[in-house]
């Protein structure tokens, strides 16, 4: 514990920490905001405001299209190339494509015209791109997507990527700031240092040490702490209303990476006892061994997979429930405004309750992920105890 805490620094006083976090945020926003300007050198683009194509479905402005709850929910849970705040306020994110002609970078505002998914012809390479259901395809000059052609490699800064970078910035600045407090004279901890210290000690004493033992816990603590705070903060980011509806940990693509890290670390650190127990479980009759060994081998892969699905499913399910309450209001509102308001009162109350539950789930899922990761690491580095 001392080694780890000495490794952390001290706690910045709150004013300068606020300044650093604020400046990082402004920098990130500036980069995002300037990217359309930078790539507008290609051609004159009309920077129209972006609203997702379901905007017409959301607001009852006498539109013909019926409100489709399934579509709305799926749209809000999926990733996007822009961050949509309220109404028509959206922030377009840079689209980065890798084609045979090299990298193409432009603002995603080019891909949406009049709040509809549209196409964009890049002046530098002459390729046209069309966005359909948030997937970018090559398009011909009329703007029809060419589905037969393999789509360009999409390396854009999407909403989830931006969210993750944002969380990364916040975490790095915050924790380096706190680490600095530990350097030099040891004053009594105050403020954020108390919270972070108790969380770190909680993970260390309740999660890492029981599974790994006091000696080996320090080796895995950096990973466990990083993953814990990352998952927790990503979950919380997705819960902030009106902030673009991030769903970072609710996407399989991101949780599979986290689970892959756990798998890789377990495999690398697996000692003889670990593999021995998998391929030749001790204390089991021979006939049952034949059944058990394939199950154990499958378990090596299934355990990280289940980690991935558990996290994704819990977070996505929470978002879907909250969105379902929203769509309940909108569905009833389609019938009549009075019905909409009436249902709205109850739905908002339930929504607030669900938000509280989701706050608990955000922390709990991070804790469960880290707990199971520590258990798997402990399994992998187990000593002979028979």
């Amino acid at each position: 514990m001392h080694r780890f805490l000495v490794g952390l620094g001290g706690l910045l006083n709150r004013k300068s920490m606020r300044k650093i976090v604020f400046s990082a945020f402004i920098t990130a926003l500036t980069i995002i905001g300037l990217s359309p300007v930078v790539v507008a050198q290609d051609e004159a683009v009309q920077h129209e405001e972006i609203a997702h194509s379901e905007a017409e479905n959301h607001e009852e402005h006498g539109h013909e299209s019926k409100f489709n709850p399934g579509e709305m929910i799926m749209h809000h849970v999926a990733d996007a190339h822009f961050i949509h705040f309220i109404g028509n306020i959206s922030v377009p994110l840079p689209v980065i494509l890798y084609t045979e002609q090299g990298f193409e970078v432009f603002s995603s505002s080019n891909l949406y015209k009049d709040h509809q998914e549209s196409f964009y012809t890049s002046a530098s390479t002459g390729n046209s791109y069309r966005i359909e259901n948030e997937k970018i395809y090559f398009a011909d000059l009329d703007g029809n997507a060419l589905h037969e052609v393999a789509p360009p490699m999409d390396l854009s800064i999407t909403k989830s990527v931006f969210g993750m970078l944002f969380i990364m910035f916040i975490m790095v600045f915050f924790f380096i700031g706190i680490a600095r407090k530990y350097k030099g004279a040891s004053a009594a901890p105050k403020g954020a240092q108390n919270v972070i210290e108790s969380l770190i000690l909680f993970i260390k004493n309740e999660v890492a040490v029981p599974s790994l033992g006091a000696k080996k816990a320090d080796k895995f603590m950096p990973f466990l702490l990083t993953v814990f705070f990352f998952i927790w903060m990503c979950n919380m980011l997705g819960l902030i209303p009106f902030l673009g509806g991030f769903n970072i940990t609710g996407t399989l693509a991101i949780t599979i990476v986290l689970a892959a890290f756990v798998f890789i670390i377990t495999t690398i650190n697996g000692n003889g006892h670990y593999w021995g127990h998998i391929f030749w479980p001790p204390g089991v009759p021979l006939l049952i061994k034949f059944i058990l060994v394939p199950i154990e081998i499958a378990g090596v892969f299934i355990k990280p997979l289940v980690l991935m699905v558990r996290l994704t499913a819990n977070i996505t399910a929470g978002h879907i429930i909250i969105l379902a309450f929203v769509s309940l209001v909108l569905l009833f509102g389609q019938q009549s405004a009075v019905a909409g308001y009436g249902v709205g009162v109850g739905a908002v109350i339930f929504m607030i309750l669900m938000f509280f539950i989701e706050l608990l789930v955000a922390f709990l899922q991070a804790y469960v992920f880290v707990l199971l990761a520590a258990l798997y690491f402990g399994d992998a580095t187990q000593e002979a105890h028979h």
Partner: protein
Amino acid sequence: MSVMDVILLAVEQGYAGIGAGLAAIGAGIGIGRIGGSALEAMARQPEATGDLRANMIVAAALVEGVALFAVIICLLVALG
């Protein structure tokens, strides 16, 4: 879409709904049992309430993970 396609889609989504309902039953039974045993244990030994509560929450999260696994599959079926 032909009639057959429409019927298949309806059946598909109907089964997905049934699957989600079964997942909810599973989660309810599982977490109910966990909560029941935890409350019983707390009644027998009130000073262990803190430990029991923490472990109950963890076990509930794990069981819920399994149920939500089924929900994800049903969602994938229902939405294509």
